[in-house]
């Protein structure tokens, strides 16, 4: 009975709802873990949103401001070696790889929680991240951005666009996780 209520409730989001496991016992078990997953994802997504915002700001600065791309790339890449002037840059020193790792992490969590729909929604981004990292320029350390090509207008524009798209995606998924979490909590 309790389960029926949310289903009959909002019509359109119902499509987005995770498919519910059959047995009540299973549901009870999944409740804690799935809810935990959503909570975690919620928090991490908040962090990712900040990352995305910073990403956008950094590239915008690069485009408009007169900052040396060597510094910039060092800050965007997780190679921590030089002293950075700007605090914002310092905070997000290890940005690219952590972002990818965080995202991959809660994808795995959703996989474990058998939240197939959520996982499915995240798969494209995961695949994109993998592709992006595979096709990065030749680099000895970890990192994504090459200081010699980053000032190329196409690449700069691409990175900015990427930042905006990711921001939008993370924002949407933030609310989706919120909804998912509440739903899981309520439905159990």
């Amino acid at each position, binding site marked *: 009975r309790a389960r029926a209520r949310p289903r009959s409730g909002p019509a359109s989001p119902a499509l987005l709802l995770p498919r519910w496991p059959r047995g009540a016992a299973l549901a009870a078990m999944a409740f804690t873990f799935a809810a935990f997953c959503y909570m975690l994802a919620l928090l991490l997504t908040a962090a990712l949103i900040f990352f995305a915002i910073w990403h956008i700001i950094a590239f915008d600065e*690069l*485009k*408009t*401001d*007169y*900052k*040396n*791309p*060597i510094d910039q790339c060092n800050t965007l890449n997780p190679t921590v070696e030089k002293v950075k002037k700007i605090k914002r840059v310092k905070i997000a020193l290890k940005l690219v790889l952590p972002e990818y790792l965080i995202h991959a992490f809660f994808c795995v969590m959703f996989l474990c929680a058998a939240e197939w729909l959520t996982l499915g929604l995240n798969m494209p981004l995961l695949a994109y991240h993998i592709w992006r990292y595979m096709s990065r*320029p*030749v*680099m*000895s350390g970890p990192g994504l951005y090459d*200081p*010699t090509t980053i*000032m*190329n*207008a*196409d690449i700069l524009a691409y990175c900015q666009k990427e930042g905006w798209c990711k921001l939008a995606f993370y924002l949407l998924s933030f609310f989706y996780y919120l909804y998912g979490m509440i739903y899981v909590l309520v439905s159990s």
Partner: protein
Amino acid sequence: MDAKIKAYLMQAAYPVETNYSPVQNQIQFPFGYGLHLENYSASSGHYPQVPHEAVPSQLNNQYVADYHSACYSIPVQSVMTPSVGPSMLNTQQSQQLYSGAPHPVESAGGPTQGAISSASHLHTSVPQSYSALSSHYSSLTSSSVASQGFPLSSGHYAMPTVSSAVYPNLSYPSMSIGSPYGQVFTSQSLPAVGQFEETNAFPGQSSTVPRTLPHQVPLGYNSTSWSTSDFQSAQDNFSRNHTGSQAKASSQINTGIVLCMQYGGYVNNQASSAPAPLSSSSDDEEEDEEDEEAETNSATSSPAPTPQTSRAPKPFGYGYPTLQPGYQNTTPSTSAMQPSNPGHHSGFQQYPQQYPGVNQLSSTLGGLSLQHSQQPESLRPVNLTQDRNILPVSPVLAPVPNLNSDLRKLNCSPDSFRCTLTNIPQTQALLNKAKLPLGLLLHPFRDLTQLPVITSSTIVRCRSCRTYINPFVAFIDQRRWKCNLCYRVNDVPEEFMYNPLTRSYGEPHKRPEVQNSTVEFIASSDYMLRPPQPAVYLFVLDVSYNAVEAGYLTIVCQSLLENLDKLPGDSRTRIGFITFDSTVQFYNLQEGLSQPQMLIVSDIDDVFLPTPDSLLVNLHESKELIKDLLNALPNMFTNTRETHSALGPALQAAFKLMSPTGGRISVFQSQLPSLGAGLLHSREDPNQRSSTKVVQHLGPATDFYKKLALDCSGQQTAVDLFLLSSQYSDLASLACMSKYSAGCIYYYPSFHHSHNPAQSEKLQKDLKRYLTRKIGFEAVMRIRCTKGLSIHTFHGNLFVRSTDLLSLANVNPDAGFAVQMSIEESLTDTSLVCFQTALLYTSSKGERRIRVHTLCLPVVTSLADVYAGADVQAAVCLLANMAVDRSVSSSLSDARDALVNAVVDSLSAYISTASNLQQSTLIAPNSLKLFPLYILALLKQKAFRTGTSTRLDDRIYAMCQIKSQPLVHLMKMIHPNLYRIDRLTNEGTIHVNDRVVPQPPLQKLSAEKLTREGAFLMDCGSIFYIWIGKSCDNSFIKDVLGYPNYASVPQKLTQLPELDTVSSERARSFISWLRDSRPLSPVLQVIKDESPAKTDFFQHLVEDRTEAAFSYYEFLLHIQQQICK
């Protein structure tokens, strides 16, 4: 007029490289400007007298007085011609008022255009007016003309003042002209729509001025000058009325020039939303056309079309609230003068004939309009498939931007600064439609024979965008100038008011900065982050077995010994040496040692400097030790068995050594680095060399060298690479060390000192040039462009530090750069765009200098104009740069496709615009007729060719050259010049330094042009091939090559003997003339028809079919097919 223009030219071309030592007020002036002194010198302090000073020589007292009065106050003038003069002033002024006033209201409308154009003419006419003898008058005239925006009239008015006697009479006509005209304007001030028409009317009327004097033809000049003086006074007053500051300026300052500036400024002020600082070329075009019409009219003695005259008698002062009461009072008198107008027409006919300059000017201007006049040559459609001989007989020249002649004269030389489109499309959409790349090709540090060097404590720059003042700025008045890139109005600093060239005050527009588009400033300490560095040279030499075997050390040491004294530098110059095999060897050259000390560091994993202080030593103090070392070095390693090469550690050590000062590291490497950091593995599969599919490994294998280069760049150190290797050395990875540190790359494949004399000769010559050429240290280059344009991508050996700033640790005169541009905002409110590169560097003498180039180009709105202005060579070079990037980032086949598509797209876009053309034929505009040929040549270039066996390093080297060579050299690389030299004649010879240089016509790069009876010279930029046919004329072989017959010519011949025959002399003078035109002296290679080296020659015959590539005709058919698809 002609003569005067020439005179002006002479003045403009004042002596060069004038690094004047402070003579007066820290400023100096070159010789040529001394001419002005007589006129100007007095003016510096005492303005009102300036006219007097200038006048007496030509005019009588009365005139002087009048003139003077005219200039300065109305009352005075009215004394002279009591009733009329003021009225004239009035009307003139009203006209000016008019042209100014409406702008705020309808800024984008016709009036603004008129006004802008007037401003433009002001500028255009000013230089012209210099030609006139006592520049004041002429400038006055020009200013007045400018105010009306009529080039034609400007032509007329710019006539110098000569005689004085008839003067008073003449004043009337001029005034009468003024008055009706002013009325015309005033009457139209309210509708303010078809101002062009009205302005059109003006020439007719203005032409009346000289017509008054049929009997006093020579005096006609006088009258005009007079009238202009009136104009000027009018402007004077006007400016007083309107802008207090301006008025002040004008009243204080040498009026002539001030006024023209004022006017321009005024226009600009008013037309704030239409901020074309100089001239709006589109407007110009229209006007020019009108001028042309007027010109023809006058020529055919049908002056002053009726509608114009009918317009004149409108009520005076009508609709002019801003008129001052005094002026209004005088208007009636002008009306009285009006009847005199028609009378003036009679003499009009003589006018143009008398002043051919006028005709010339307006015809050149008239030539600007593309759409309405006859089709320009560059747009003439060429049927590519039918026209077999599209290659011109003489080398292709850069197209001249479609500007008026004065801007053209001022514009930057195409050798230093070229744009792919000399007509900039107005919007990105238009650019996309044209399918042509937009970009710049720069050769900023080129060796110049003429370069004005300016020492000045303040370098005048725009306060917001930091643009350097340049010939294309607009002077609003004497105290302010308007930036031509961001349109900000800036103050002219006090110091700039003084003109060092004329030693006069108040002529900022005549300063060399504003007269030359290429100037060099000596920068103050504001432009230094640290004290200027000394010249520091570090040589890193490979001494492994391979290197010793190749024997390059002898050549390098020998060249260094020879050129040690010629190394650019001052007393602080420092030099050091590092050698490496599997260890790194340092040389202690500290002064006082009896002989050089070798210090060996074998810990290549963590390389350190054994003695940090004495490894880089002062060249002059330790010269003996250095010479000892250079003499000993070639023999020190003769018995080495070490085959490994620890290039990476050696470079790290070099970086450590150089980082405190910065400077230049020259690396000589002979094999694949095999030890320590940065070691590389062979990646080339010889079986893949002629693959048509995928060419791999075009990118670096490791980022070690790139990182090193970036570190070096950060420490102002450039790494130059000399790769002398016989096998694969992974240039793709190694080149990174030079690419990102702004170094240069030399590659000598299969180098061997005895087996390959051509290469060793080339190394010798290259080294000589390399060691002695100019060098700039710790340089940055910024490229600025008019608002709306933005920089997309940079090409060249450089590091991009921010969107428009390049960091160049070293800059050398042989480095070229390319810049891709995009149009971010449409350029609707401007008709001219400017590009400025500023290269800030430390000279080898420890001076901080800024070299500034400014290029000015018109903006066009129609696709046809874009095509008309296409610079095919620049476009091809830019495309080649883009293709290199593409082949590294994507793949070679992608890049090749992109090149072909570039031709297909642009030609199909052109064909679709020219609707009247048959779709079935392949048509190109004349400006682009060589486009397919060049692209085909590019596809057959080593960098991009497929199917032909090409070693990976050769390919990469070709790519590096494409990226870093300036356009002139690159074009020869892409499309060599072929000449037939066995029958050099004296036809069309040119004389250079007392030498007669024959000019044989260019031949198509096709075997069909080669005959067995002939001898051909192919100029590939860095190498000359002389191909000798089997049955070549014996007399040629005897007279030029010095051998009795064909059979006795040796296989390897690299020099032409100096024979005392006419044909030998001709051939040699031709070849040395070709050599002199480039910095790197090319190697000559004589190729007999049956020698194996002939493939080197034949691979450059790009129009021919090869196993793997199209012939030119096939390529055309292919393009046609693609277009029809």
